[in-house]
């Protein structure tokens, strides 16, 4: 099985190519991500409307939130996206050692992000900034909470994929699963890039 044939949707010897011309698993993930775009649009849109459309009192986010810590955390999530893409590149080359190494790095990156976020919540709650602290508190915890839930789901799935990788399930050109979970992982990173800007920086 060559990488060329696999990229044409013939992974595992079967032709799993849909009408769009990509592997059906990949198309399925993209359709799910498209619905996720609308999910996060509802959250981000509500924030935009509540903050700029209603004339409500709004604190400067940087007076409440610790931007340097979250900037570093953003960087950690970006790094885990890079390790994910490196894992995919290793899988395409059937480099099993590289695949396992980069998947482990991705799990560590994602888990670190969630841990820092938990630490941030703890710190904010101690300072008295709660979901009940006005519109900013409510929207902040809703948006970052749903995003954190997505990262957590991603880490759990990634652990499962890593275990499968250690069992050699992605060897011999059967790497579609790596690309599929990678798409989810990068999407969660992409959403965070937008959230970090809208909730923390602006």
């Amino acid at each position, binding site marked *: 099985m060559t990488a060329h044939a696999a*990229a044409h949707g013939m992974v595992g010897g079967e032709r799993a190519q849909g009408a*769009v011309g*990509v592997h059906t698993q990949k198309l399925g993930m993209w359709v799910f991500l*498209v619905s996720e775009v609308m999910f996060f649009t509802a959250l981000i849109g509500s924030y935009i409307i509540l903050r700029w459309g209603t004339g409500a009192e709004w604190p400067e986010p940087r007076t409440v939130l610790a931007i340097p810590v979250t900037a570093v955390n953003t960087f950690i999530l970006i790094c885990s996206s890079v390790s*994910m893409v490196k894992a995919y590149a290793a899988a395409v080359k059937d480099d099993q050692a590289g695949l396992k190494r980069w998947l482990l790095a991705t799990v560590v990156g994602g888990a670190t992000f969630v841990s820092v976020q938990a630490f941030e919540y703890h710190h904010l709650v101690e300072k008295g900034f709660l979901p009940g602290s006005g519109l900013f508190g409510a929207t902040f915890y809703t948006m970052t909470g749903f995003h954190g839930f997505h990262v957590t789901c991603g880490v759990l799935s990634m652990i499962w994929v890593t275990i499968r990788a250690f069992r050699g399930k992605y060897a011999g050109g059967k790497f579609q699963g790596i690309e599929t979970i990678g798409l989810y992982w990068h999407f969660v990173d*992409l959403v965070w890039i937008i959230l970090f800007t809208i909730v923390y920086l602006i």
Partner: protein
Amino acid sequence: METAEHKAPNYIAVWAALAVLTVVEVAVVYLHLPRRLTVVSLVFLALWKAMLVALYFMHLRFEPKRLLYVVLAPLPLAVILVVGVMHGFRGP
């Protein structure tokens, strides 16, 4: 199909660009520029970063056009949703 032929993009270069753009974003916040300029540059930088992730990490750049249409479909709907509800809030 051209999708299978492309070489793997330089992921480290994309990573470096994302890191630099993140540093610029944080710098913009602490530079105390005029408010409007700050907001416009931050939105621009965030969209730039999001594009890099979508084009290279999610390799949309190398996908068939038909998949691109599927992916871009919700974006106008997202704008309509937000602008529509915003209009409702500001209504009579």
